[in-house]
């Protein structure tokens, strides 16, 4: 009898443990399966594909690093690659200054909770929620050289000389697109910065004020160092966003980076290489994959370095 009770006991414990394992598997399996199938598998395949020759959708023979060589050193591709890369660099620098600089200023002002604080928050954030497609087309209409609102406005206020085909000139096209992007996104860093400022204990700022610090000194010496984590995130997100930039130039300048490739980006070049276009010729999955792998390595390396560096200057708010 005593023996029988003991086995019941062992079985019951084992059953409970198995049930728990089953339950955990049930919770985790769907998410892991989806992520593996549609994110990890394609990411790994991209590397795999880049070392093969491709004929349309059919994989050809193993070619080693030939695709990489073609992307980097082939005279024709190479010209496009360098042009697009430096355009992306310009976008990153310009967005850091215009978009994030403005966002920081707005956040510092909003942090003082002026009258209309809620209204300003909503106004600045409103474009953020809209699709890039809407923003892109809307501004394309506004920037139309003849009847676009921008030029009409300039003519109406007596600045007719300034009216120009903004998106048609290589000198102004990229700048215009960057400003449109800044207009679209500025609310996002503004509110991230604002949230970071609000997390700084009010006592700290009050104490600095009692010590006789000016508002400018408070911003520079107290707020700026303590909002460092938010700055890190915004810098890294801006970096990734700039080098993945696709929608605005695609909609406003087209797949070939019009005018005269002055708005060409790595994203557009990748799309053309992979799926074919006038300049890039037929669709080529091999060189396309190689280009994707290179872009990924570049973004990953630099965002990791930037995160490391920026995190090291963060101060913990205990």
């Amino acid at each position, binding site marked *: 009898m005593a023996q029988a009770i003991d086995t019941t006991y062992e079985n019951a414990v084992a059953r409970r443990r198995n049930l728990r394992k089953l*339950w955990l598997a049930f919770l985790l399996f769907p*998410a892991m399966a989806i992520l593996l199938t*549609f994110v990890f598998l394609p990411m790994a395949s991209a590397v795999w594909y880049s070392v093969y020759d491709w004929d349309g959708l059919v994989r050809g023979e193993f070619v080693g690093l030939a695709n990489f060589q073609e992307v980097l050193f082939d005279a024709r591709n190479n010209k496009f690659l360098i042009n697009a890369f430096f355009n992306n660099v310009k976008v990153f620098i310009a967005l850091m200054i215009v978009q994030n600089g403005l966002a920081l200023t707005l956040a*510092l002002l909003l942090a003082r909770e002026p009258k209309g604080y809620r209204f*300003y928050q909503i106004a600045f954030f409103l474009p953020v929620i809209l699709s890039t497609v809407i923003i892109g087309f809307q501004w394309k209409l506004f920037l139309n050289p003849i009847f676009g609102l921008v030029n009409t406005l300039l003519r109406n206020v007596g600045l007719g000389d300034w009216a120009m085909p903004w998106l048609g000139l290589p000198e102004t096209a990229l700048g215009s697109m960057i400003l449109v992007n800044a207009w679209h996104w500025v609310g*996002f860093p503004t*509110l991230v910065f604002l949230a970071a400022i609000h997390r700084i204990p009010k006592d700290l700022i009050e104490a600095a004020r009692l010590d006789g610090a000016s508002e*400018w000194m408070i911003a520079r010496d107290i707020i700026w160092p303590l909002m460092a984590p938010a700055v890190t995130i915004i810098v890294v997100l801006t970096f990734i966003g700039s080098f993945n930039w696709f*929608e605005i130039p695609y909609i406003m300048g087209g797949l070939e980076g019009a005018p005269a490739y002055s708005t060409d980006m790595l994203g557009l070049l990748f799309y053309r290489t992979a799926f074919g276009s006038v300049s890039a010729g037929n669709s080529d999955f091999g060189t396309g994959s190689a280009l994707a792998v290179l872009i990924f390595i570049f973004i990953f390396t630099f965002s990791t370095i930037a995160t490391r560096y920026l995190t090291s200057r963060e101060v913990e708010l205990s």
Partner: protein
Amino acid sequence: MSTMNKKSGDLGTWLMHIFLGVNAVIMLYPIIMMALSSFKTNKEIFSSPFSLPQSFSLDNFAVIWNETNVPRYFINSTIVTGLSVLVLLVVGTMAAYALSRYKFKGNIMISLFFLSGLMLPLRLAIIPLFIQLKTLGLVDNLLGLICIYTAMSLPATVFIMTGFLRSLPSELEDSARMDGASEFRIMVEIMVPLITPAMVIAGIYNAVPIWNDFFFPLIFIQSPEWKTLAQGLTAFFGEYSINYGVLYAGLTLAALPIMLVFIVQSRRFIAGMTAGAIK
């Protein structure tokens, strides 16, 4: 920055309000112009671009409703966004629940697995993804988009939900266990109801970019009947390239639903959209 100086007193405050006000106008004016222009005829847009429309005629909207595929795109976007977010929240919350509420071997490894998914830009894997979906018969199919969006947004969702679920006291769970509730019941009846606000935040965080995306449809959808709103607008722009009133009406219509929800729920929207960037 000199506007920050409090010593300049009233002048500083004035400058601050002028600066904020001008910015608010710059942000809002284009959107208002877009909406106003959607009521104008082509002739009006050329002759008096800045004035109020002569009448709030719905002709342009009627053209969209009767002659274009925009309503269809709208439905497609709703289906894709709705189902993606639903699956995301269910599957993501389940995984987050396991990771945040149970100690087990491999917990840290699986957490890292999800975390590393945050750093993979799926756009760059578009070629293998295309071949993969083609094999599965999911190209030119809304289900394909749903799969992609769900997978792409899962890491962030798991990350956000884990944070919220961790903050729940474990005594609640113990208490329900003492009350005899099964693990499933504890999750569904006790814990999940307590994180509904977090689910709304995670939902918005995912829904807005999915609704707005046009990169993946651009590559995966070809048939007009399966196009999403953002993608469909590009086709629509080609078709009506000279009828500006209709173009503005299309943009307004596309922007309207999300803007209305935003204005009513701005607090949650802002919390939701910035959820990934604020620790």
